[in-house]
């Protein structure tokens, strides 16, 4: 019994490792095409994020927003909604947080900082809530609305940070870079390790993961959200207001993404600037799914995603290949890992595939 359990474990870890190896093998082909040495490149990809304080802290710097966005994704997916509006929600959260922080000069951090986070979360929740409301009331599909809302948010964000929120210095010097002024330094999140950019936002994100877990699994509201996700018809019969919970789910998802925006402002950049969302709205989805849509699983998954993003970036610099190769290899890794998922869920599928593709040898080493 015990052994069998271990054996399954070994197989599962092996499958994941195999998927990763497969992706890297194909990726090596691209590296060779780009006239670089795959071994050196991959050496950096793996060791980069883990072999120095720089790599380690920068990984967590990326894991922070990934985790926050991912938690929102988990809430919405569990409630039966696909939220691909994370990018816009992050931007709304970031700009609201920056605006509130700049409007409160001299207010002690103990009071101001919660307000900053709250405003970021509320702005994100509002933006996500629009998509929720459109779906619940007017049956507008959320994929359509969030794709559109992302574009709209990007323009509103730019309008605000180049308009009346712009750093007065940028106007004075005529450089006009679209960014807000620096936040008062009392509102900067503490750096966890001196000489690095890792800030307390990471701890906040981890704490929120626990909160989201408790919320989804231990509270009646969380239960109803998941019930709506599991079967809207049945929930309706059970007397749950599906439209209310649809709006709530999207608002919560947007709120988490908005929180990510606020954390990036207060923890990392100390102002709102261009491209602050950095694609986390999409990579957060991947992190959430890697974490099996479980808030606690999302913690290691977002660290893994963060390491992947950083390691690929470091690899590009180390072997001087075109940056495009990084995106291609990340795409491959996602494809391979997501494909191997079937073998994790259903080990017997391995044998079915074997039989199908290698009918001669198949089935001999069966191991369900």
């Amino acid at each position, binding site marked *: 019994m015990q052994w069998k359990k271990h054996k399954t474990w070994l197989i599962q870890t092996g499958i994941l490792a195999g998927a990763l190896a497969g992706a890297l093998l194909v990726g090596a082909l*691209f590296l060779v*095409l*780009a006239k670089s040495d795959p071994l050196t490149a991959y050496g950096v990809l793996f060791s980069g994020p883990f072999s120095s304080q720089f790599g380690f802290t920068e990984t967590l710097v990326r894991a922070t927003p990934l985790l926050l966005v991912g938690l929102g994704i988990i809430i919405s997916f569990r409630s039966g909604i*696909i939220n*691909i509006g994370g990018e816009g929600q992050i931007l709304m959260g970031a700009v609201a947080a920056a605006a509130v922080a700049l409007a409160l000069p001299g207010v002690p951090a103990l009071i101001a900082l919660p307000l900053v986070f709250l405003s970021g979360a509320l702005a994100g929740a509002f933006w996500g809530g629009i998509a929720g409301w*459109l779906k619940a009331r*007017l*049956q*507008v*599909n959320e*994929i*359509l*609305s969030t*794709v*559109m*809302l992302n*574009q*709209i948010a990007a*323009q*509103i964000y*730019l*309008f605000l940070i180049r*308009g009346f929120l712009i750093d007065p210095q940028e106007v004075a010097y005529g450089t006009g870079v679209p960014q807000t002024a620096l936040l008062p330094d009392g509102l900067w999140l503490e750096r966890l390790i001196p000489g690095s950019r890792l800030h307390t936002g990471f701890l906040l994100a981890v704490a929120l993961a626990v909160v989201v877990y408790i919320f989804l699994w231990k509270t009646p509201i969380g239960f109803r959200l998941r019930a709506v996700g599991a079967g809207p018809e049945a929930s309706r019969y059970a007397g749950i207001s599906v439209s209310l919970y649809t709006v709530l789910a999207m608002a919560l998802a947007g709120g988490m993404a908005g929180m990510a925006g606020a954390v990036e402002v207060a923890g990392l950049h100390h102002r709102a600037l261009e491209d602050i969302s950095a694609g986390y709205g*999409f990579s957060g*989805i*991947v992190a959430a*799914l890697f974490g099996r849509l479980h808030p606690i699983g999302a913690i290691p998954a977002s660290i893994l995603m963060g390491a992947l993003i950083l390691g690929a970036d470091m690899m590009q610099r180390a072997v001087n290949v*075109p*940056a*495009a*190769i*990084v*995106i*291609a*290899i*990340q*795409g*491959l*890794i*996602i*494809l391979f890992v*997501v*494909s*191997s*998922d*079937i073998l994790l869920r259903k080990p017997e599928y391995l044998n079915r595939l074997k039989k199908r593709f290698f009918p001669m040898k198949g089935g001999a080493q069966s191991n369900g």
Partner: protein
Amino acid sequence: MDDVASQSIMIGILAAGIRLATPFLLAALGEMFVQRSGVYNLGVEGVMLMGAFLGFFVTLTAGNPYMGLLTSLAIGAVMGLLMGLVSVTLKAEQGISGIGLYMLGWGLSGLFYRLYVGGITGIEGLQPQPIPLLEKIPVLGPVLFQHNIIVYLAFLLVPLAWVVLFKTSWGLKVRAVGTTPEAADTLGVSVDKVRYQCLILGSMLAGLAGAALTVGNTHMFADNITAGRGFIAIALVYFGRWNPWGILAGSLLFSMADSFQLFVQVLGIQFPYELAVIMPYVVTIIALAVTFGRVWAPAALGRPYERGSRG
């Protein structure tokens, strides 16, 4: 402003709207077949980028735009096959595999461009082919009948897709597989096979949509030239409620709003340009919101089919 000028501007807006709608139409019609069969492919953007690059590259090296278009169809088929392997055979979560396909296509197109072209280079590309007689019709002529061949093709595909989807036995199979795969399976329709066919067809159209941007419109390639158009195309499938005519309406609405806002800006009406830029997105949401009604979607959308399982 005198009448001649305002008329030429109006023709300009409408013609640009038709031109801009072309890539959306091709990619969205393709995605419609894919989703009708029960799969959603979020990787359209990546397929478009590959089609855009290879269409451009072959046109550049072979000197023949039609070879370029064929290549973009071919690479689309390959990408569709890959998506089928991942999403149909291996039953992977479709949202996430689509993002993977998108990143693969984006990265590879950028890489190949750097390795084999190396900088902004122009091609001859497709030239407008006015349709004899029809092009002479006032207003309608320059708006509809002075485009390149991909534009005509995209619009002709609308009725064709409708016929295929609703009037052929293959279309019936596609719809069955997307709504009640279990029943289709019982009747001897191979769910996986139909889904593969749709993915390949849909991705070929997405590849062509990419080529419409490079070989057809701009006559060059640049990194990430699609700039999010693949995602808009997916949204337009939902807008069009999985119906070719709805998709046509959505594509035209979006593109016309876009060309209109450019014109509004050019004429210098004073207001923040951001408002103009977001106009097509807002118009699309509002249009869908005010026409709400019975919402139908392929019932098995996003659900990998596993024989003997329900759900």
